[in-house]
C-alpha cells in the first residue's frame, strides 16, 4: 500500500523529535460561509489525527487586512504555528530572511513531487531549490457565474460565453435585473479585468504583457479590446452597489443579477445556498471564450519557532494538509481544486469537473501572484478601482495600465 508506506516514512521522519501535544495557532482569512466550512475540515483533520490542537486565528477582511498582522507577528519574533499566504512572491523575503521552516525533507520523504499537479504549484513554494510551503488548493479567477433564474425571468437562454452575456444584458435590464453583479472593491475589479484580458486576447498576447511585462503590447491595439470590454462590463455593473464579493454572488444566487465574474471560490457560496451547478447556475471557465484557468491558490507556511513540540507538530500538520482525505474534504467545501493529481473527484460537481478537465488538458496559466509583485498588483487594483467607479475612458485607463506594466518588476 502506497499510502501506508508514505505514512510510515512520515511517522519515522516526524518521530525524530519528541511527540507531545501542542497548541497550533493557525492564522488565515477564510471567514465567508463556504470558506469557514472548508477550514473547519482542516481543523477537524488536525485535531482528530494528531495529538495537537488547532487554535483558529481567523482574521476577517481580506488578505490585505490579514497580511500585515501575519507579517508583523513573524517579524516581531512571535510567530504563529502556521499561516495561510498566497504562494508566489509574497513570502520570498520572509524565506530569504530565514523566517520560514524548510519543508524539503518532509516533501521528499512523502514524495510530494510525484503527486502534486500541476507541478507549478510546488514551484511556487520553492525558493532556491528548497520547499517552504504546502499548497492546499488551486484557485482560478477566470470564471463567469450565471443565474438560471435571472435568465428565465428575462425569457432568454443562458449565455454560453462573455459576448452572448453582453448581448443578453438589455433583456435582463428590461426584466428589472442588474445584468452584472460586481463588488465595488479594487481586487474584485482587478479580477474581472484579468479574466476579461485572458479571455479576450488569448494566452500569447496576455503572456507578453503579464509575464514578459511588454508595455508596448499593453498599450497596443490588441489590448485596447480588453479595455473596451472592461468599459462594457462597467456599464453592465452600473447598478450593482454592493461591496463584498459574496454579496455580489448572493445577487446571482437570488436571481437579482444575471452574472458575476469571480474566482471559483464563489462556488462555495452557491453550495451553502443549496444550489446545484447546471440546474440553478452555470459556470463558464475562461468566460466561455478560452479554455484556460490560472493556478493560483492558497498555501500554508510554517514560520520558524523555538518550541520543539510545535516544530514537530508543524511537520505533522503539513503532512495532513496535503493528505488525500483532507484535500478532498477541504476542496469540496471550498469549491477549489485539490493540489493532488491522484485523487478521484467523481463526487465533485459540474463546475469542478470543468476545472479538472481544463487542468488535465493543460490549459494552465501562471497566477498573477507568481508573475506580478504585490506592489504592481496594488497599482493595478488602484487603477481598476478608479476606472470602475468613474467615467475614465478606456483609452486613458489603457495608457495608465501600460505605464504600470512598464515599471513593473
Amino acid at each position, binding site marked *: 500500500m502506497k499510502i501506508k508506506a508514505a505514512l510510515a516514512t512520515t511517522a519515522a521522519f516526524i518521530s525524530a523529535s519528541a511527540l507531545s501535544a501542542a497548541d497550533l495557532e493557525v492564522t488565515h482569512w477564510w471567514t465567508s460561509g463556504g470558506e469557514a466550512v472548508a477550514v473547519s475540515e482542516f481543523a477537524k483533520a488536525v485535531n482528530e489525527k494528531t495529538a495537537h490542537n488547532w487554535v*483558529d486565528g481567523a482574521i476577517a477582511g481580506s488578505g490585505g487586512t490579514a497580511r500585515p498582522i501575519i507579517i508583523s507577528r513573524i517579524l516581531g519574533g512571535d510567530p504563529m504555528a502556521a499561516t495561510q499566504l498566497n504562494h508566489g512572491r509574497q513570502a520570498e523575503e520572509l524565506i530569504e530572511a530565514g523566517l520560514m521552516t524548510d519543508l524539503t525533507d518532509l516533501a521528499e520523504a512523502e514524495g510530494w513531487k510525484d503527486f502534486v499537479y500541476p507541478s507549478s504549484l510546488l514551484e511556487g513554494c520553492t525558493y532556491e531549490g528548497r520547499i517552504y510551503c504546502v499548497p492546499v488548493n488551486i484557485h482560478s479567477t477566470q470564471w463567469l457565474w450565471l443565474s438560471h433564474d435571472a435568465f428565465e425571468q428575462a425569457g432568454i437562454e443562458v449565455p454560453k460565453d462573455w459576448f452572448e452575456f453582453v448581448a443578453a444584458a438589455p433583456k435582463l435590464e428590461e426584466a428589472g435585473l442588474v445584468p452584472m453583479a460586481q463588488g465595488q472593491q479594487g481586487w474584485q475589479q482587478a479580477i474581472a479585468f484579468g479574466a476579461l484580458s485572458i479571455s479576450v486576447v488569448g494566452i500569447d498576447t496576455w503572456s507578453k504583457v503579464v509575464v514578459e511585462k511588454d508595455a508596448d503590447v499593453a498599450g497596443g491595439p490588441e489590448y485596447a479590446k480588453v479595455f473596451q470590454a472592461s468599459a462594457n462590463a462597467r456599464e453592465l455593473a452600473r447598478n450593482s452597489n454592493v461591496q*463584498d464579493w459574496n*454579496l455580489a454572488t448572493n445577487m446571482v444566487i437570488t436571481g437579482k443579477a444575471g452574472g458575476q465574474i469571480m474566482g471559483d471560490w464563489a462556488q462555495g457560496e452557491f453550495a451553502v445556498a443549496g444550489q446545484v451547478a447546471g440546474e440553478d447556475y452555470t459556470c463558464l471557465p475562461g468566460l466561455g471564450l478560452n479554455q484556460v484557468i490560472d493556478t493560483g491558490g492558497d498555501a500554508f507556511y510554517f514560520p520558524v519557532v523555538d518550541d520543539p513540540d510545535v516544530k514537530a507538530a508543524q511537520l505533522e500538520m503539513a503532512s495532513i494538509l496535503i493528505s488525500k482525505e483532507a484535500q478532498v474534504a477541504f476542496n469540496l467545501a471550498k469549491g477549489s481544486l485539490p493540489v493532488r493529481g491522484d485523487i478521484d473527484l467523481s463526487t465533485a460537481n459540474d463546475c469542478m469537473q470543468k476545472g479538472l478537465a481544463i487542468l488535465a488538458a493543460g490549459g494552465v496559466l501562471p497566477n498573477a501572484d507568481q508573475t506580478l509583485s504585490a506592489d504592481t498588483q496594488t497599482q493595478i487594483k488602484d487603477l481598476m478601482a478608479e476606472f470602475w467607479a468613474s467615467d475614465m475612458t478606456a483609452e486613458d485607463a489603457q495608457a495608465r495600465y501600460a505605464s504600470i506594466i512598464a515599471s513593473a518588476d
Partner: protein
Amino acid sequence: MVDATSPTAGRILEGPRGSKPKSRLSRRNIFLYGTLLLVSIYYLLPLYVMIVTSLKGMPEIRLGNIFAPPVEITFEPWVKAWAEACTGINCDGLSRGFGNSVKILIPSLILSISIASVNGYALANWRFKGSEVFFTILIIGAFIPYQTMLYPIVIILREIGLMGSLWGLVLVHTVFGMPILTLLFRNYFTSLPEELFKAARVDGAGFWGVYFRVMLPMSIPIFVVAMILQVTGIWNDFLFGVIYTKPETYPMTVQLNNIVNSVQGIKEYNVNMAATLLTGLVPLVIYFVSGKLFVRGIAAGAVKG
C-alpha cells in the same frame, strides 16, 4: 493672556451665566431650545438607529425603513452578537473579547496614567535643562500617524522581547497615550498655586514627597479626565490590538471587526449593530455616569494652552 483655568471649575457646576430668562416662552427661549433640540437629533439619530436596528429581525430590516421602531422586538441579534457570531470556525461572538479587553485596559490604564502624571509634574515643577525640548517632541509625536510607527515598534518590541505579550501592548498604549496625558497633567500642575509647592519644599519634602503628599491628593479631577480619555482610547483601539496580540487575546474591537466583516451569506445588519453597541457599551456607560466629572476635570486643567 487670561488664565482660563482658574475660576472655571468652581463655576462649572454652580450654573451658567447670562441674564435670567424673563418668561418661559420668550422668542429667545424658543430659538435657544429649538436649536438645541434640532442639534440633538443629529447627535441622537445614530444611537437611535443602532438600537432600533439591533432589535429587529432581518426580514423587517429588509422591508422597513431604518428609523421605524421595531414591530416585533427580538433580542436574538444581541444574543448572537455576544455568544454565537462566527469568525472562521470560532463561533463564540464577542464574549471572549470582553475579558481580554479588560485585561488589556487595566494595566495600560495604571501604567500610562502614573507615568504621564509624574512626567507632567516634573515638567511643571522640576524643569531641567532640555525638559521642554523633550516635551515639544512628545507633542509633535501626537501628530504622527500611528501607522508610521508600526514597523519601528515591532522592531523595538522584538529587541526587548515583549512582542506578542500583553505587556508589549500595554507599553504601546503607554507610549501613545503619553503626549496628550502629559500635556494635561503639565497644564494642571502648572495651574496649582506655587505656595503649596514651596511650603512642602520648606518642610523638607523631595521630588517624590511633594508628588505623593501634595500634588497627588490635589489632582483628582485631572486624574478622572485622564482616566476617561484613556479608557475610551484603549478600549476603542483596533490597530494596536490586532497587530500586537494573538487570537486568544484579541480585544473586543478586533472581534467586532471580525464579526462585522465575516459576511456569511447575507449581511446581518441587526447582529452587526448589536455587536457594535455591545463593544461601545463600556465607554458609553463611563461617559453617561461620569460626564459631569469629566467636564469638571477638563475645566480644571485641560484648557490652558
